[in-house]
């Protein structure tokens, strides 16, 4: 438990992703089973011990600490588990040896509401202050230290020099403490079976297109739809029937899209774009609303009837990975596409359609079609090598994404804030605005967006210096500048927003150029930005 406590503290205080990965990988390599598996589960999904809740911690403390001193301490520290770890009275004499993570987990699993107070108190007595903090966080399932499942898998792959795609594939369906996974990765055992459960398979991804042109004899073109990439898995076997919808990161989002989950009854694994139907009927096949409409449905655990009616979801299919237990991933794209085209007519047409292949004579013709595409649900064009197998991750030369050219607007730098980690001494988060009328006739700047990337290291140094030399006000970590610097801001789209004073919200804004040549009053007006609103 002490090693786990040290890991937890280091993760809390380490801002960089790479350093977090290294900490996790070291821990996994150096810690025996089943401790490392339980620890991993605690850090990612959280472990659930129904008999241990925050109220139990409060009542344990109420028996040991004056209520006024408890309240003053809790208010100051701001976290119940941390306060309790600091206030816990150390038992007299030598402490018993600290429990292992596995012992803690097994003990807490066997706990009832009646036995929990004694059992938790005994465990607390055996730990030092950092150990007590880790125990209480683990027991109440409230880590909140920003370790995503993906980060944990990358760390796992790094720890044992296996591919992260394999880790992704074998991970699903495994329950803590993941002993078969560690056996496979650390000890060279056979990988766990993956065909019986509705498991996630790692996505095939694309590189941005950098070549001037591709030969369409080798590459097929499809629209790149602006929704969220999903995988839908249905299995039917002796264990039962089940459908799951997974997001790009492998998170199970079935609960948020019940209409899609319910509609698939054919055993298969599909790759597609989740979209919602909306007022904007456009595009080659029609029916997809803009990303803004889809956003209404994202990030929800459950979904109301009104949501289902107002923003009905469907999936536009790109690929077929497995059908009836037959793994097609080694097949060529053309062969899989043929199987997909044959499958789609048998699926529920209100929930599934197929992403059409774009007919183009040659690359110039395709470029022409791409430039004419005005459907807001289209983000660009995908180019897929006709003979490409379905391989996890980004493999050079197989798939390319060719995004639509970004929209551009000239804005004025208004506020800057320091970054974090390596950038903590730099002003690197920028808020910029457009004029709400004629600047020569007294118009004001209204903030329209925020960006913290798009510039080079050299440009960052310039911007940092600019901010420091042109500060006219400070509000906590934020500096207000004299609004003399113009940015060319690139962004993917812009939407009406009631939450912003300017009335607009940009998608993916980034600094594309620093326009030291342009005076601030020549920056764009809000009307110019509003004219680009997509919905």
């Amino acid at each position, binding site marked *: 438990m002490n090693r786990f406590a040290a890991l937890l*503290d280091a993760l809390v*205080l380490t801002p960089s992703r790479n350093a977090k990965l290294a900490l996790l990988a070291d821990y996994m390599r150096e810690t025996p089973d089943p401790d490392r598996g339980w620890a991993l589960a605690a850090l990612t999904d959280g472990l659930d011990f129904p008999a241990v809740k925050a109220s139990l911690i409060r009542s344990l403390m109420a028996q040991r600490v004056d209520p006024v*001193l408890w309240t003053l301490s809790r208010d*100051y*520290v701001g976290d119940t588990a941390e306060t309790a770890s*600091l206030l816990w009275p150390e038992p007299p004499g030598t402490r018993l040896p600290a429990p292992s993570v596995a012992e803690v987990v097994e003990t807490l699993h066997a706990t009832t509401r009646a036995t929990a107070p004694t059992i938790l108190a005994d465990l607390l007595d055996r730990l030092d202050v950092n150990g007590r903090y880790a125990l209480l966080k683990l027991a109440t399932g409230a880590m909140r230290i920003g370790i995503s499942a993906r980060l944990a898998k990358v760390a796992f792959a790094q720890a044992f020099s296996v591919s992260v795609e394999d880790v992704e594939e074998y991970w699903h369906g495994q329950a803590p403490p993941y002993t078969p996974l560690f056996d496979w990765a650390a000890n060279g055992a056979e990988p766990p079976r993956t065909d019986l459960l509705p498991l996630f398979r790692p996505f095939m991804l694309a590189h941005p297109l950098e070549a001037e042109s591709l030969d369409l004899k080798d590459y097929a073109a499809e629209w790149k739809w602006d929704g969220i990439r999903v995988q839908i898995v249905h299995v039917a076997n002796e264990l039962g029937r089940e459908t799951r919808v997974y997001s790009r990161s492998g998170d199970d989002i079935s609960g948020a899209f019940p209409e899609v989950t319910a509609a698939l009854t054919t055993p298969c694994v599909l790759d597609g774009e989740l979209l919602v139907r909306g007022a904007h009927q456009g595009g080659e096949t029609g029916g997809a609303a803009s990303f803004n409409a889809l956003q209404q449905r994202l990030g929800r655990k459950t979904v109301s009837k009104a949501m289902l009616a107002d923003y009905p979801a469907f999936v536009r299919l790109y690929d077929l990975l497995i059908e009836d237990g037959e793994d097609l991933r080694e097949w060529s794209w053309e062969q899989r596409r043929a199987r997909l085209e044959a499958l789609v007519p048998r699926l529920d047409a209100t929930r599934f359609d197929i992403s059409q292949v774009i007919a183009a004579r040659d690359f110039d013709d395709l470029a022409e079609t791409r430039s004419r595409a005005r459907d807001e649900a289209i983000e660009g064009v995908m180019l897929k090598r006709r003979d490409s197998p379905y391989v996890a991750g980004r493999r050079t030369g197989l798939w390319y994404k060719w995004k639509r050219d970004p929209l551009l607007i000239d804005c004025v730098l208004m506020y800057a804030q320091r970054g974090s980690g390596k950038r903590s001494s730099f002003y690197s988060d920028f808020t910029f605005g457009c004029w709400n009328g004629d600047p020569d006739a007294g118009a004001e700047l209204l903030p329209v967006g925020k960006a913290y990337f798009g510039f080079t290291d050299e440009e960052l140094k310039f911007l940092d210096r600019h901010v420091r030399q042109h500060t006219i006000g400070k509000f906590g970590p934020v500096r207000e500048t004299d609004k003399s610097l113009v940015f060319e801001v690139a962004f993917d789209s812009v939407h009406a927003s009631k939450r912003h004073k300017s009335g607009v919200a940009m998608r993916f804004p980034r600094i594309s150029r620093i326009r030291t040549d342009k005076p601030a009053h020549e920056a764009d007006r809000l009307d110019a930005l509003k004219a680009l609103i997509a919905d």
Partner: protein
Amino acid sequence: MTMAPPFSWLKPEPFGLHVIPADAWIDPARAVDTALVTHGHADHARGGHGLTVATPETLAIMALRYGVLETAATPVAYGETVTLKGGVKATYLPAGHVLGSAQILLEHAGERVIVTGDYKRRADPTCPPFQVTPCDVFVTEATFGLPVFRHPPIADEMAKLLAARENEQGRCVLVGAYALGKAQRVIAELRAAGYNDTIWLHGAMERMCRLYQDHGVDLGDLQAVAGAPKAALANAIIICPPSALNDRWSRRLPEPVTAMASGWMRVRQRARQRGVELPLIISDHADWDELTQTIGQVNPAETWITHGREEALLRWCELTQRKARALALVGYEDEDD
């Protein structure tokens, strides 16, 4: 004529404790005719007083900070007593906080009052330890007056610091520490832990370290960061004021591991907010156990609490049936210690 109520000759005013018969002020937050100063931290030792009464070390620190004291100063060594106007006697006793820090024992009308200034009970190689002295009124600080504050042994924190230096080859460890007291204590404790390499200093630390060395505190080999090539700073330990940790100044250093030596580092969120990777829980103030233990040992008739988290300490006094009150003094800071 009726007898004056007990201790009425000492009056807490918003900007300091007024010793009425002597017309003197203890650690006043503004310039006065006569100031009794407990120690050299800027929030206790302000400049511009007509007469400053303090230990020789504190006077030297004040002279360093404010230039030569343009006005009169009365040095009082530890254990010495001076008689002030109105027959008030003031004795300066070690407080164990920083070099020169003193508790001031005031005697008048048969009553004994101790004003601690800031103090701690842990051993500190840079100053003599706090001396427990009986009194009627004990005027204590309460900077870390919450039971969550229990400072760990400093040897543990030194081990963390040295391990970080060992584990992060090619990087340096940058320790944010108060320029007066904390910085020199960290250096002295590193030496005590057997670390004999050069310790590097931010410019703001140099003169104060030299002052400590002039007063016989052994700090080993110190060198200024300014002008040092980046390569020389790999695997180095560098001490800077907390404000410089994330400042442009730190860009010249080889990938610093950001550490901070402060009692506030006990609370994770405080460490996170400051972007500290390596929190070192090192304080020159008494923690909760030391505060309550000291009040118990001194066992005064009344405890007055000057600054910090006085509510919790008041509550403790109530629970242990001790007479106590909080003084609403202004101008003391506790942010970085």
